[in-house]
């Protein structure tokens, strides 16, 4: 059943801010199995060779979004990426465009702040108590399969942040709100239950958001969940402009 173990040469970024000024590379030669993912190799090193290596992971089924890393220079979900796609040697680094905390762990708090700025929740014009009439007798909004389909794709984002690593705008302008945050804000703008598009579009018209995007499309290419954030950014640009144009002719709500 067990095949003769194949070996792989693995280069891993190591960085401990307590000791190192800059990140360095550590090399490991390890036995691998043909059905392993990149994450399995990292876990092998952690368990059997060097327990001081730090990385994040949990679900190992491509849904929790924690295990994003650069593999041979490309952002990858390591639990979804087969080792067999690489032969002989492989280079694993922390996600690009984020500050490194330690080894393969990056600081994502910047994203968490950006995420909150797009108000990723259902906004309604009325207070909940007065809004109940919008619900059916089961207490839910009515939403057709087509209305659901309008935003579903953009709700599939697992916050893995590969798209930020791939984005040339983020690389130059770290303040750029970025693909996933825009996709998730736009997801609510497209949701038939939501009434907050105007508010979010105001955010989208601000500096460092949708109009900073140069439409390189890199984000959509690396996205492991086919969210197509580039499409979201493009649609959000349009939405923000239309809303703005409307604002020129119509008085602002509540003003």
């Amino acid at each position, binding site marked *: 059943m067990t095949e003769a173990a194949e070996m792989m040469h693995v280069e891993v970024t190591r960085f401990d801010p*307590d000791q190192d000024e800059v990140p360095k590379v550590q090399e490991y030669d390890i036995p691998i199995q043909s059905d392993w993912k990149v994450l399995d190799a990292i876990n092998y090193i952690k368990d059997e060779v060097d*327990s001081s290596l730090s990385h994040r992971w949990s679900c190992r089924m491509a849904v929790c979004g924690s295990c994003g890393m650069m593999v041979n220079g490309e952002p990858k979900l390591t639990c979804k990426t087969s080792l067999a796609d690489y032969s002989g040697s492989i280079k694993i680094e922390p996600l690009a465009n984020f500050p490194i905390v330690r080894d393969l762990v990056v600081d994502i708090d910047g994203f968490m702040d950006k995420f909150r700025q797009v108000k990723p929740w259902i906004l309604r014009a009325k207070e909940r108590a007065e809004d109940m009439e919008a619900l059916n007798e089961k207490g839910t909004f009515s939403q057709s*399969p087509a209305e659901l389909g309008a935003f579903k794709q953009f709700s599939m984002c697992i916050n893995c942040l590969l798209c930020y690593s791939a984005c040339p705008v983020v690389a130059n302008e770290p303040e750029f709100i970025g693909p996933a945050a825009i996709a998730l804000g736009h997801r609510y703008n497209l949701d038939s239950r939501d009434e907050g598009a105007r508010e979010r579009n105001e955010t989208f018209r601000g500096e460092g958001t949708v109009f900073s995007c140069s439409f390189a499309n890199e984000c959509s290419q690396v996205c492991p969940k086919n969210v197509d954030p580039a499409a979201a950014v493009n649609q959000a640009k349009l939405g923000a402009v239309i809303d703005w144009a409307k604002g020129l002719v119509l008085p602002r709500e509540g003003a």
Partner: protein
Amino acid sequence: MIQVSRHDIVIVGGGGAGLRAAIAAAEAHPDASIALVSKVYPMRSHTVSAEGGAAAVARDDDSEELHGFDTVKGSDFLGDQDVIEYFVEQAPRELALLENWGCPWSRNDDGTVSTRAFGGMTTKRTWYATDKVGFHMLHALFQHSMRFENIVRYDEFFVTELLTENGECKGVAALEIRTGEFHAILGRAVILATGGAGKIFPFTTNGTIKTGDGMALAYRAGVALKDMEFVQYHPTGLPGTGILITEAARGEGGYLRNADGDRFLVDYDYGVGNKAELGPRDMVSRAIIQEFEAGRGIDSKVGLHAALDLTHLGEAHINEKLPFVRELAKTYIGVDPVYEHIPIRPVVHYMMGGVDTDVNSATSMPGLYAAGEVACASLNGANRLGSNSLTECLVAGAVAGQNAMDFARGSSEGNVERLRGQAECESARVDALRGSAKGSEQISGLRQEMNSTMEEGCGVYRDHPSMAVAAEKAREIRQRASDLHLTDKSKVFNTEIIGAMELVNMVELAEVLAVSAAARKESRGAHTCRDFPKRDDTNFLYHTMAYQTEDGPRLDKKDVKLGHWEPQERKY
């Protein structure tokens, strides 16, 4: 130096149960400060991996009475009926709330929420969002929670101890993973929502973070762990990785086949005709093992397995209802279910047992609450029905949030200096452990020993001689876990020390599990003994309660709360 922060309540865990508790508290008390502490960013919590759905009565042909009875029967009459009644009554409202908050539930053409069939449920009452239900529920909850300014998050903080004063819970001691600094996070009530402990076993659907920390925290603080012997094996995990293929695959019409290609479940008594595959999990898992033992398992390089056949459903149906199943099967076992059978075998999935709680999500310790998989409110008894636990996270989480706030409002903050002192001792203990090369046991080695001990002693089928051996061995492993050899001295994102503390938690629970199992000389739900094949209501219709002592767990009993559903033979 310890950092002290003060809140009204402290919630440990940012999965389905913890987020629901935080929202309940924040909504009802806009002036209150709610701490939400989690060892991973909330959206990484393992709720994210749930696939199939969440149960609540939705259709006109259904009723709370039916959902209640299905749950009691599924529990093999070990469920507490007051909890079950409350649960089925609250369930529809909770799932509707989640809809209001943006969860993309799958829809019928008329715009209402769609439901699907699930094992052990008499009618379609499982709400779903294709086959990524936990993912969508968790993200909807997390995103909704962000609107509340009064939820203060402590992301990537690892809780190591409950802080107590005069027997009341007053906060937690936590290690900030990124800095290695210690914190005393104080509140007048604490909610544990730390999830299950599947990683005690080698082959599980659970992610690496499911190490039972909250169970161990409560146990060490003197609270009982209840019914820990009941471990759910899910019938359909991928061989090798243990990745789950959801029961919804059978709910949508999939078949299980043996080496002869037969739909063997038709011959077991779990339903009729087209529903043969929709028996409860304990029974279906046993049937698969029996097929293996009768020589009808499929042998291959991924080991002995059975086959899940979806080919007759067609590509369109699979893409519409089970896209994640298709993605998982292709990525992790190289099989496209549109054309081929998916190899599957029973896999450790869910802990029915946990921290002893009641219908109020309260524990025996004043100020301490627990909800979700960490808790054992006795909704699930000896066997959980699939899709009841996501709903349980919401129902019990909301109750915990409300009750903890009520308790906090009527109680004092405690002596901050004394609590800080307690956390300082804990900090010193953890500092001494960090990078301590004194010990001789390797984390991964001991973990593997624990894993194989539990697999051998506490599998789908058990017998008392092997359970006794497992209990003895688990005890020895627990003792050895105080002698770990660590090498990483860094304070920054030191995952070695986290792994060490998680292992210490797990070995403690492994012993409780094995000891509790060895004491139950009957077969009930997921606890199936070859040497005691029958349920024995005369002698064993009680909850096992395990208390920590220096020599290992001390067992006690607690009555099952019966009600209008009388125990009867469990037949499907």
